[in-house]
Each structure stands twice: as C-alpha cells, then as structure tokens.
C-alpha cells in the first residue's frame, strides 16, 4: 500500500466545520460529524441541536458534573449552556422537519450522484434502526455528508445509485470525503468537485468515483 494522501478524519471534520456560519443552528450526527464541534472557527457562534430534545448542547461533563437526565442523541452524557433550552421529541422533530435547522452534518455509507444517501442499514446484518436520520435528511435546510471516499476494499462509495436501502432521496447538498469536497447548488442535479485534499490529484478522484460528477 502506498502512503496515504488526502484528509484524515479530523481533517474532514475541520473542513466540514467551515460550512458553519455565525448564528447557525446545527445538528451533528455520530462518528466524524461529532468531531466537527472541536473545529468551529473563531468568531463563529453556532447552537448545537440534539434531536432528543435540546438546543445549546454543551461539552462533555467533568466527572463530577455527570447528570443522567442530560444526554445527547448518541446517549452520551453532556452539559448545558446558558442559552440552552429543552423540549419534547415531537417539538424537536417539528423543528427539524419544519426546516428550522440550518445545517446537518452526518455520516454516510453511500451517496448517489443525485444526492441520495444510505446510512442506516446493511441487508443481512442486524439492523439497529434509522433513529432520527431520515427526519434530518428530509427536513434540514442543508445536508453535508462526510465519509471515506472508498470502502476498505477500495470500491467507491460515491455511486450512480446507492446499493444500500436509502435514508433519503435527493437531499445531500455537499459531500466531504478524504479526497475532497463535492458540492451542488439548489436545483443542480449533480455534484462538482469544488476542492481537492492536499496531495490528491483529480485523476485519483476520477478513478475512485463511480458517480457521474460534473467534472468540467
């Protein structure tokens, strides 16, 4: 194996954090997206939503601050901030479904060239459920998916069509992988390559991408 070029998980999280604008209300999925909270640019003040019923999610608690009544959607213990508010799950998803969250950053197993996402089940394996993922991709104003560009076998995860059961159709606006950033604007069908990770050449991206992008 050759030496790895491109972005690490932390780099991808840092790049995703650049999509956050001052004043945004933000929902972060589990995995790499959770790391985004560590990379919010200076001068950008965002409010994190946790879909189990909280706005203004704070950092993990110190050991003596742990409160069993205060967890995030990943069931991790967290803390509150001065700005925090709590609400029930129906209100929380009314917020999500109603388009009030500015951006969702979430992990993906596969993304299609038309912006479909699959990230909740692998047929034949025990399925844990979609949790709030289907609601988030259907409702949030802008959805950014973060994933490795290929699977462990080297096969592209950016595909003409998803092979896994979908989480949502035509809902992803930006894809951030270890190779770069892929975007499409409102009403644009396909993604463009808008950024390459350091040391990554366009040829490598082309070779590792089955999806038909707007390469021009």
């Amino acid at each position, binding site marked *: 194996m050759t030496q790895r070029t491109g972005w690490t998980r932390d780099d991808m999280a840092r790049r995703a954090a650049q999509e956050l604008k001052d004043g945004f209300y933000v929902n972060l999925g589990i995995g790499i997206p959770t790391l985004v909270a560590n990379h919010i640019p200076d001068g950008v003040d965002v409010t994190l939503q946790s879909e189990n019923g909280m706005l203004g999610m704070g950092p993990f608690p110190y050991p003596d601050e742990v409160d069993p009544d205060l967890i995030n959607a990943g069931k991790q213990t*967290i803390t509150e901030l001065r700005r925090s508010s709590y609400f*029930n799950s129906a209100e929380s998803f009314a917020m999500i479904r109603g388009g009030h969250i500015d951006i969702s950053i979430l992990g993906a197993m596969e993304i299609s060239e038309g912006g479909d996402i699959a990230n909740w089940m692998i047929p034949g394996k025990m399925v844990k459920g979609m949790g709030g993922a289907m609601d988030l991709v*259907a409702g949030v104003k802008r959805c950014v998916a973060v994933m490795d560009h290929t699977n462990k076998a080297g096969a592209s995860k950016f595909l003409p069509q998803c092979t896994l059961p979908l989480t949502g159709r035509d809902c992803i606006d930006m894809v951030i992988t270890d190779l770069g950033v892929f975007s499409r604007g409102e009403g644009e069908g396909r993604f463009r390559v808008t950024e390459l990770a350091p040391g990554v050449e366009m040829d490598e991206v082309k070779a590792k991408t089955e999806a038909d992008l707007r390469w021009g």
Partner: protein
Amino acid sequence: MGKVYKNAADALEGLTFDGMTVMSGGFGLCDIPENLIAALRDSGAQNITAISNNAGVDGFGLGLLLEPRQIKKMISSYVGENKEFERQFLAGELELEFNPQGTMAERIRAGGAGIPGFYTKTGYGTVIAEGKPTREFDGETYIMETGLKADVSLVKAWRGDTQGNLQFAKTARNFNPMMATAGKVTVVEVDELVEVGELDPNTIHTPGIFVQRIIEAKCEKRIENMTVRERN
C-alpha cells in the same frame, strides 16, 4: 377519584391484559419508567405490542419484558443495544416495525390529539414509504402516516402533583409528554410527588388531564454511555 397509587403494581392493577398495546417513555435508558416496566413484567401480560423509541438493554428497561418473551411486537426507531432482542428478532420470534424517530414522535402526538393521519416528507423514496398513501403539496410528494394510540402509556417524569400535573427534567422529557396524551390510561412514575399548588402553572409540561394514575418511586437512572472530559 384520587390519582395517587401506592406503588407500581398497585398502579397497573386492572390495566394489563394479553395482547395489549403499551407505550413506554424515555430515550435510551434516560428516564424510562423503570418501576412500571418491572410491574408490567410481573403482571404476566403476554403478546404485548410495545411502542418505545428504544428497547432497553439486557435486564433493564424493556429488556425485562423481552427475556420472558412477553413482547410480540416492537415499534421503535433504534434498537439493538440488547442481545436478547437481537436473538429473538433474528429467530423470527419478535416483530419489529421501524419508524423514523420524528415520524414516531409525531404519530404519537397525533394519536393523542385526535389526528388520524398526517403527511410528512420523512422517508419518501425509502422502504418506510412502501405501501403508504402519498399526496402532492406544492409539487412535492409526501407520505401519509397515521396516529398511534395505546391501551396504557407508561411515563416517567421528574415532578408531579396529586392532580397529575407533570414536569420533566432536561432531556428526560423526550417521548414522555406525547405518550402521556396517547394512552387510554396513562400511568406515571415520578421522582418527586408534590402537593397541588407546588408547581408553577406556567411551567407544567403535561397537564393533569392526561394522567390517570401516578406513583412516586425511586429510580436507578442508569447511564448508558458515560462520556466525560478531564479537568486540566
């Protein structure tokens, strides 16, 4: 017409039966109605349909009902922190209906609010939409979801008064308030039972009209995923 009962067994007296549908509040292990779930297990009711965002863990929460095989079907958004659940499901012994978490929350709210159906974009184009009616609004397609009700709702609250007015603590609110509205009978366990008048009427999350029975009970309050940072 008192709503206050002595203990969990007492509070479920006469409410449990084979084939019943039960809603159970909480998110993960955060403020689930621990004592009421244990009393439901002890009631011996079989073939239960359980509506709950999660299915507990082995030996705790709804896990208590799984081991003696009292649950026939689960309606949930996320499960599988639970080996016995997985075993029963893979063996075809347990029916499972996945709902997107927001759809599930809204279905329960709708059930309690007399709304038999509503449209949502959530799940459109996925397996969740299969077999469900659709309708276009402003050129976009939405799927119809139905309201959910239960024979009995089991709810966990922080404080409650003797009229059944409830307050929830922090993220322990989650599914509890909607479930309180969607049960034919709603039974609540609270950390603290107080006299009427002790809760500020402006800050009541669930009005007493939705609560038929209430108990005060000690909760273990397990933490599923302890995550801390170090003081530097």
